[in-house]
């Protein structure tokens, strides 16, 4: 109440200090400490031991499988997202908000349930189980199942990003292009694509981070066969459960590095195109 130049909507210095102090301590404890722990544990026996753990054949196989999975799942979901956003944002039709809710659905499903549903469809006792065995096709406990489960959990990322963005941009530019005789594809690539590229990249970035890091859904369908159906997060689990902590944290450090790069790129993209929508997953 000393009432000097402080603006009435500005908090007193001690309120600021208190709030900032609480926030920074909380964030430090909850968010920063785990990341620090990963790197400290990975380097516990020195850098060579950590690097050796990363170069282990099973670890390399896990890295390869994770990259392969992301390489299939992310473009698939990006293509789906663009397709869905074109239908939803550039046209008016009935049940539109219902369709958006359905596209969002995988975000509300537990990752374990996401894995389970594919076991019930493609597993040995599942709907197509007999047919798949007859034709000697493996989906569950094999790479296709891992890819499918990953597609499911990352399904909404790109669509969620593009639908509001394309709705904001309206249809005027596309209508102008079409009225000047451009084909649909031409309109998309020359008019829409330049407008949505940053939003698309943002969605792809988040989609990729989740695809490479997914654990629960993949764990259900993978079968945990070393060197064959283990992704990086699953490999971390196996090493950790074998008390090979340096190995587990070395692979975890790689994933941590991926997360940090993702956050850095995300921050850059937000500077290029300011974001006002609340992020999800």
């Amino acid at each position, binding site marked *: 109440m000393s009432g000097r130049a402080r603006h009435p*909507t500005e*908090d007193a210095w001690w309120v*600021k200090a208190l*709030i900032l102090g*609480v*926030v*920074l301590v909380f964030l430090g*404890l909850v*968010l*920063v400490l*785990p*990341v620090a*722990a*990963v790197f400290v544990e990975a380097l516990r026996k020195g850098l060579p031991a950590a690097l050796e753990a990363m170069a282990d054949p099973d670890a390399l196989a896990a890295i390869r499988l994770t990259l392969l999975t992301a390489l299939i799942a992310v473009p698939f979901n990006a293509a*789906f997202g663009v*397709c869905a956003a074109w*239908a939803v944002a550039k*046209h*008016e*039709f009935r049940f539109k908000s219902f*369709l958006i*809710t359905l*596209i969002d*659905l995988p975000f*509300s499903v*537990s*990752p*374990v*349930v996401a894995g*389970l*549903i*594919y*076991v*019930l*469809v493609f597993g040995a006792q*599942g709907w197509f189980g007999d047919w798949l065995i007859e034709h000697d096709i493996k989906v569950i406990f094999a790479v296709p199942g891992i890819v*499918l489960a990953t597609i*499911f959990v990352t399904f909404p990322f790109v669509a969620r990003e593009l639908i509001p963005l394309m709705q904001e941009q309206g*249809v005027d530019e596309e209508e102008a292009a079409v009225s000047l005789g451009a084909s649909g594809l031409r*309109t998309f690539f020359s008019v829409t694509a330049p407008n949505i590229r940053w939003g698309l990249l943002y969605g792809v970035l*988040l989609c990729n*981070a989740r695809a490479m*890091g*997914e*654990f629960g859904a993949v764990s*259900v369908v993978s079968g945990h066969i070393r060197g064959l159906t283990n992704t*990086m*997060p699953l490999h*971390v*689990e196996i090493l*950790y459960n074998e008390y090979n902590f340096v190995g*587990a944290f070395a692979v*975890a450090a790689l994933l*941590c590095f*991926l*997360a940090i790069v993702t*956050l850095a790129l*995300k921050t850059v993209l937000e500077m290029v195109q300011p974001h*006002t*929508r609340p992020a999800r997953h």
Partner: protein
Amino acid sequence: MTTTALPAVEADVSARPPPRKANRPMLRRRSAIPGFGVTLGVTVAILSCIVLIPLSAVVIRSTGQGPAEFLDAAFSPRALAAYRLSFGAALVGALVNGLFGLPTAWALVRYDFPGKGLVNAVIDLPFALPTAVAGIALATIYAPNGWVGALLAPAGIKVAYTPLGVMVALTFIGLPFVVRTLEPVVRDLSTDVEEAAASLGASRFATMRRVILPALGPAWLTGFAMAFARAVGEYGSVIFIAGNMPYKSEIAPLLIIIELEQYDYAGAATVAVVMLAVSFLMLFVINGVQAWARRHT
């Protein structure tokens, strides 16, 4: 959707150029933009194959066994204990996030401090960090010989391998939901109202309590519900720190996996259906709160 009487002939392209009015409600406006049929068709087809049909499998499998078996599997003592832990710990995690998320969002919008950009980026860490990595890191920190666990052990507090550990993991997972939902609302909060309150003689504390907090209520509730919904189904970050003892520290998603490993597909599907039902209820609540907030702001 209200159907305004719009004769089909007038809606035809030949009737152009009609003056375009924004948000004209109708079944489907004839748009000059091509590709509607193809993109909608592909969207619905992929959505059905990847999401809807597989999801229906879990419902069909769980209801195919008869109502008595369904209830047995859905509400067995072990399942009930697992729901209690999953929902209870998710609730605690979401509450902790609600408590600390509000000052975090406030500080990020209103204050300037060194390292703000970094703090802003760090908030999203739980979205970017694979859950298994978070899980083994938290288990290590909170184990009796870990950085934090060693500090708590003399006080007799065990975190890792107890329900408390589950709460810690679910707090980690849910934080960005509360902060990122509150942030835009804090930013849009008009300072005029605060100035008016202050000029009418309200103390800063009274302004906070009577003006600011009520305005943030719906967003806070939405963020809380989203954090809760995510935490209920969370698996990767929890299992390493939970202890996974049946009836004590076993979460519902883990129970699904255990039943699956015992080839009890119907049992696993049943627990999954219960969890799905709760998730959809949460989705419904979140949409309801958001719709209510839009009407009242």
